[in-house]
């Protein structure tokens, strides 16, 4: 069978795992170009005005990938209650309206049994699909976990380093992600993780400095995709803030796919944590945002950065409740509502003001690093930058 060129939406470093799984299955993966202002403008041109940012950015990704030539597009589906589950249908209609006849495959819980679901793949891969599936899933999963381990380690280590070492750390993070991305086997992944451990061991720590601890919560795509949040995590890290991010790709797969398939109530802990303010699942990451903010309040974090697309419904609930939590617990909460018009300078200025606010005697952030120029050249190489 010919190798079909497949593409998928950019969603931060999660793309590394998706690319690996699709390649192993037998597709020629075309990674969409990095998301830029132009991507958002392109996507926004053809989507409803009040649709949320992820719809626009992913459609922009597809249109740019189509320029490179693809045979089919993969997208995740869903069953609500947030809008994400309808993206696939809406985008398919929009692309059709624009004259793109490319098959659009929506991956979601199969309604008509697994046979129908697998048929989506065997149509392009033939029966070889069944043979390759376990290996593809395993490789994708291992890469997802490795990427998360790199990212978590970097966030944990950064606060303990001097400014120039933080810069080196961030470059090393990029190198490690590239290594994982190009790994063709589990052994190669483990080699990359070994390189990570060596770097961690070698970096000189300065334990005497206390940093402001900031928690980052919000909607999945705008937290994971640096291009949508102005590379917030990188900037905060370089500015010497201790960042705790609450959404990681492998965790999300584990919770929403593995645990859900097993019927486990993995949200119980979140509900208990969010209890006085939010008592139930409201779709998306609304419950997580509230639960983690309360956790931040109880554990003495200096502040919370809340990232959400404008109009995101679960996050509007969270927005309302986070303001109350912030007021009640004296915890600074910065809610950034993002759409295609949000300007980088404006967002960074607000973050700078926020860091001034959360500072005080514990603050030793070097704020000038907040405005550091992000390396765009590197972004072109790996899916997840």
């Amino acid at each position, binding site marked *: 069978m010919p190798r079909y060129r497949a593409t998928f939406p950019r969603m931060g470093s999660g793309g590394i795992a998706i690319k690996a799984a699709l390649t192993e299955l037998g597709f020629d993966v075309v990674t969409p170009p990095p998301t830029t202002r132009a991507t958002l403008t392109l996507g926004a041109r053809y989507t409803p005005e*009040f649709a949320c940012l992820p719809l626009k950015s992913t459609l922009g990704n597809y249109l740019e990938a189509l320029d490179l030539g693809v045979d089919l597009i993969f997208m995740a589906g869903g069953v609500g*209650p947030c809008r994400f589950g*309808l993206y696939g*249908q809406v985008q398919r209609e929009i692309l059709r309206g624009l004259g793109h006849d490319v098959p659009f495959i929506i991956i979601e819980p199969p*309604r008509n049994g697994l046979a129908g679901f697998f048929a989506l793949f065997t149509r392009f891969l033939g029966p070889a699909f069944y043979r390759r599936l376990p290996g593809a899933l395993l490789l994708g999963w291992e890469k997802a976990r490795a990427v998360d381990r790199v990212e978590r380690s970097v966030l944990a280590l950064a606060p303990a380093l001097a400014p120039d070492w933080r810069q080196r750390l961030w470059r090393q993070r990029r190198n490690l992600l590239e290594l994982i991305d190009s790994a063709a086997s589990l052994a190669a992944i483990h080699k990359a993780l070994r390189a990570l451990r060596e770097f961690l061991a070698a970096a000189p720590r300065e334990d005497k400095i206390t940093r402001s601890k900031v928690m980052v919560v919000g909607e999945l795509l705008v937290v994971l995709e640096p291009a949508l949040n102005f590379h917030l995590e990188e900037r905060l890290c370089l500015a010497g803030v201790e960042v705790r991010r609450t959404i990681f790709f492998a965790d999300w797969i584990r919770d929403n796919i593995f645990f859900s398939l097993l019927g486990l109530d993995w949200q119980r802990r979140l509900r208990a944590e969010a209890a006085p303010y*939010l008592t139930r699942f409201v*779709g998306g990451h*609304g419950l997580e945002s509230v639960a983690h903010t309360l956790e931040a309040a109880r554990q003495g974090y200096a502040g919370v950065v809340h990232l959400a697309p404008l109009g995101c419904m679960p996050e*509007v609930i969270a927005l*309302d409740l986070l303001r109350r939590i912030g007021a009640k617990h004296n915890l600074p909460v910065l809610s950034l509502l993002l759409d295609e018009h949000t300007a980088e300078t404006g967002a960074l200025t607000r973050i700078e003001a926020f860091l001034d606010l959360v500072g005080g005697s514990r603050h030793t952030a070097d704020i000038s690093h907040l405005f550091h120029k992000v390396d765009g050249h590197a972004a072109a190489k790996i899916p997840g930058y």
Partner: protein
Amino acid sequence: MPFFGETCSITRQKQRHCISLEVTRISSKPIGIPRSLMYHHYQAFWSRFLTEMGLTCVTSPPTDQVILRSGLGLTVDEACLPVKIHLGHLAYLDERAEALFSPGFGRQGGKGFYCPKLMGLPDLVRQRFPKAVEFWHETDRRGELRREPWFRAMRRLLPGLRRREFDAAWHAARQDQIAYRARWEEGFAPLRALTAPGGRTASTLHPAAKIRIAVLGHPYLVYDEQASQGLLRFISSCGVQILTQEIVPRSFADLLLPEQEKPIYWPLGQALLSAAYHYAARDKVDGIILISACICGPDALLGELLQRYISRLAAPPPLLRLTVDEHTARAGQQTRIEAFLDLLGWRRGHAAI
């Protein structure tokens, strides 16, 4: 608080407040029912149930400027207009009742959902209104409302409540609700289904009119005069026959369009698409007006899908999309509607188009 005797010099708005506010009974606790969100779908059930339980129902008046403005100040700007209006109604009732009926809306039909904001709403309300009692609406696969959350809520209000009394009230209210819905099938949309005389009718608001228009949208926009800027009243005054989502025959009420692979997981949203399909293909109307709230999550996508699907049918009717928020000006909206009606009249005159 004005009473009936003082109505002479009071403006019409305040008169409405008087008329809808029942004089407080001596016997039992007044509970405030907000005339917002799904009120127009569930009003028969709510008032019958609470009355059977021995509570006095105090319903807020139709939304007006005062209620809207108080609601705007109670939550974040990014919340949609219906939620702001709902909070305004609760603020109105907070001063006039001892408990507040705070509805929340969860899974429908075992699989679908209402919008996330309606799911999180009771929690939002609880932060501001300590008197709020949560009444959770969740229906199973047969469409039956789950009783347990309501029993818990009633126990809070009436400690020592016995299951038998509760079940009796539930049964009575359920019958009322079924009868109410049956009136929709006869052609009486929610605004008139309780008060109109018996028997069938071919139209809802204006019989024997020339142009037929389907006004589609969520009930808390279509039937709320403030939110819709008097849409139904204005169109009706132009001599138009109005048809709505609720009076679509039940067998067509959630039929999928040909291009739909799966039902929309918001049943309210699927009802919208199915109604559009019905009025565009089966019971053809001259035009469709779709009203949505700004920043309404579901409507942003549903409006897009509706527009595309309907345009692919044979000879679809023209579609006018109206988006409203708290800044919408009545005059501007009326101008657009007038232009739309002119277009429909012109099409009628030039039948070849």
